């Protein structure tokens, strides 16, 4: 299932009836449709820690997997632009997300991967300081992760 349910799942817990109904409706959608109707996961982006952001985005925990390959530099000279890519050999991937554990808000980016799209993403992220970058791959409704520490010499959140 895609990331869009997690904010609604939270609202279900809070007892917001109307939104809960909508959330249940999306549960039966195919991944492609769910992606087309995807809402911005505002709540997940506001969480400070990676654990809270993961919970807000997916509502479950991830297990480390060597099938998720995280490509990030050992040392990033400029924390404002850190090239990070993830690829995976897992099948049935529906989303890929990036967390930077010591950033003010841990969730950096989340990508919906509809059926037919190759489960690999490359992007550039900001990093406040040396910390772990965590890539989460959602495959077959389960979460798999890869973690790598990136040393940052000049933080991307300074000023």
């Amino acid at each position, binding site marked *: 299932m895609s*990331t869009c349910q997690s904010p609604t799942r939270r609202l279900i817990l809070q007892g917001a009836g109307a939104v809960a109904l909508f959330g249940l409706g999306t549960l039966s959608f195919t991944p*492609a449709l769910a*992606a*087309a109707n*995807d809402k*911005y*996961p505002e709540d997940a*982006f506001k969480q400070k820690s990676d654990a809270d952001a993961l919970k807000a985005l997916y509502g479950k925990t991830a297990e480390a997997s060597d099938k998720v390959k995280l490509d990030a530099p050992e040392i990033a000279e400029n924390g*404002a*632009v*850190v090239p990070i*890519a993830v690829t995976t050999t897992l099948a049935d991937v529906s989303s890929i997300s990036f967390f*930077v554990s010591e*950033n*003010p*808000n841990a*969730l*950096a*980016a*989340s*990508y*919906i*991967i*509809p059926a*037919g*799209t*190759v489960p*690999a*993403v*490359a*992007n*550039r*992220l*900001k*990093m406040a300081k040396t910390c772990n970058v965590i890539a989460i791959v959602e495959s077959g409704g389960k979460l798999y992760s890869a973690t790598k520490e990136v040393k940052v010499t000049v933080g*991307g*959140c*300074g*000023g």
Partner: protein
Amino acid sequence: MASTIRVRATNTGDTTEVQALIQHPMDSGFIKDAKGETIPAHFIQQLTFEHNGKTVFLADWGPAVSKDPYVKFAFKGGAKGDELKISWVDNKGASDSTTAKIA
């Protein structure tokens, strides 16, 4: 006005590889300017790629994505000459879109 989106989509047989570069400040809301005043957050929240009316890739971004963001992905299908529609919307409600031909 020139588009803020630059896209290169290349078909290599089975898959189409897409690289996009967007001009956007991606202000995080944590940085202060020279006067010590906080620069308000201003960042792209959603970026969508559509091929033949089907979303092939959707990015949800927070302010931790670098300034002038870059993203690369690939999808199965697509043919030379097909159009790829790219659009983004930011946290202030601004948006832009463009279409690119797959090469």
